[in-house]
């Protein structure tokens, strides 16, 4: 599903060169739930951004479903992200001036779908995360856990085959975190979605199929 070949990521300034990732080779199978663990600043989020085509590697290749994507145009990358990949961020990244329904509908406005279909799909996604009664609330009217569930609904509304989550439980208490994990597990088991989760939490990582560990920009396990 996702193949990373010899990925390097180097941040350069005039005086300093920082190696964020070095020689990363990683394959993630379809329907797998993988967690990426490592200390702060080890390159976990950078790796996730490269997998999600939000950032370009300095060297190496990314393959999504067998296709090398380094020659893709900005528009093609956007289409690929829209159709194949869903993102969940630690800080939710909901648009505060849109209500829950409009936030969830957001990825669909970049597809050729009718407003009616967008609404239906957004309602279904929100039902799936248990927020069908909050359609017209605004993000600030929801708890952190509820906001993260909205972010998950937004990530899955377009039925992506890959879900990339960056510390989705990082800002939540353990109970809320547990609920989010259940939702992610159900996405894997019910829809066969490939889930990649960056986490600091050993306990959450143990609930996934495989744990990938990174230290100083290198895979260690």
């Amino acid at each position, binding site marked *: 599903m996702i193949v990373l070949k010899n990925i390097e990521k180097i941040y350069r300034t005039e005086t300093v060169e920082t190696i964020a990732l070095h020689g990363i080779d990683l394959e993630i199978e379809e329907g797998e739930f993988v967690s990426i663990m490592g200390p702060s600043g080890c390159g976990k989020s*950078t790796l996730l951004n490269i997998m999600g085509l*939000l950032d370009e590697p300095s060297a190496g290749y990314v393959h999504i479903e067998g296709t090398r994507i380094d020659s893709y145009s900005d528009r093609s990358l956007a289409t690929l992200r829209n159709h194949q990949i869903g993102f969940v961020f630690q800080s939710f990244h909901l648009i505060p001036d849109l209500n829950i329904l409009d936030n969830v509908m957001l990825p669909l406005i970049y597809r050729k779908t009718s407003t009616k279909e967008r609404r239906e799909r957004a309602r279904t996604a929100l039902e799936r995360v248990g927020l069908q009664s909050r359609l017209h609330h605004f993000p600030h009217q929801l708890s952190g856990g509820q906001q993260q569930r909205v972010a998950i609904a937004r990530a899955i509304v377009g039925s992506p085959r890959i879900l990339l989550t960056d510390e989705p439980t990082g800002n939540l208490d353990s109970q809320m975190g547990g609920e989010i994990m259940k939702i992610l597990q159900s996405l894997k088991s019910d829809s066969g979605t490939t889930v990649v989760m960056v986490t600091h939490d050993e306990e959450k990582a143990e609930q996934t199929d495989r744990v990938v560990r990174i230290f100083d920009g290198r895979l260690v396990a």
Partner: protein
Amino acid sequence: MIRQMLVLIWNRKRINALIMLEITLSFLVLFAVVVSALYAWKKYSTPLGFDYRDTLSVVLIGQWEPHHAGQLKRAAEAMRTMPEVSWCEASHMDLFTKSYWTTVLRHNDKPTQLMVNRASDQYHQLARIPVIDGRWFGPQDTGGDYEPLVLNRRAAQKVFGSESPLGKVLPHSLGKFNYKVVGIIEDYRQHGDLDPLGEYGFRRYVWEENSDTRMRQLMVRLKPGTPRSIERDMLKILKTNLPDYDFSISELSVARESYMRKSLIPLITSAMLAVCLLLMVAMGLLGVLWQNVAQRTQEIGLRRAIGASTTGVLVQISGELLTMTAFSVAIGTFLALQVPFTGLFGNIEADLMVGGITGATSVMLVLAFVCSVYPAWLAMRITPADALHYE
């Protein structure tokens, strides 16, 4: 996308209201500038109603006595004998100066104020004033129980409306005699190219031996290419025939240039102020929009993460701002349309209103587009990953 754009604009109404207020005020300033510029251009591009080229103005400086009328008549006749002179006629009012003389005409109890001048029988030929209806006054008007009057088209329309003005008799404002309209001319703008179109009339000056009617100026049309040295010969003739006077001789083309320079100073000053104002508006708008876009950098990162291309996000950001500009311009247009009803700036003609609104709208849309695209483009250059973490 359009629905979502409108929802976002509405939901951000508090922030957007300030931007829209700035755009509306800018639009109104621009509207005023464009209308003023169009008005000045319209006046400039409208024919003056006379030909000033190759013409000298000879102003008599001295105290008028009735016997001076005969001296003036002989001076004009002597000038006409000069081979370089095509025409020499009398016209009381200076051209390209701010002086004026007005009278009031009453027709059907409706008073109309107009500027007037007094000129001799061939003056229209000297000044090449097109007579569009009737005739210029002449010897056939001598001895009548009226004073002949030539009106410009605008005055004729204002005094008589749809009635035919020719042959109409109107009382003098003090009841001393009656005017009779004998001819209609096009516009005659005595004050010059930037003078607004107004009501104007010519009264007849008759060459006589003795007259209480003071005439203070002779107009002399020279043959093209005549050197200015002719003024010396002219002065000799003038001094011989009008010994009680001093004379000021000037070329009308020079007088026009001097008038244009003086008139353009306030216009150029206003234009420079307007340009400064526009620059300030542009900078202000750019600053507000820049801040607005900068605050939305994370949102831009999010939109790109969920499937928007850079072009798509540019369209989104610019689209929102152009939509707000369109709303602001609509409000500004509504307010601008109320200006004629206030009467503060006189009667603003429809074509100026249309030009002002069109011009101001175009500039505001371009300004909003440029001011939104540039900061959005800068935001686009950040990778989605960095944009998502932008603080």
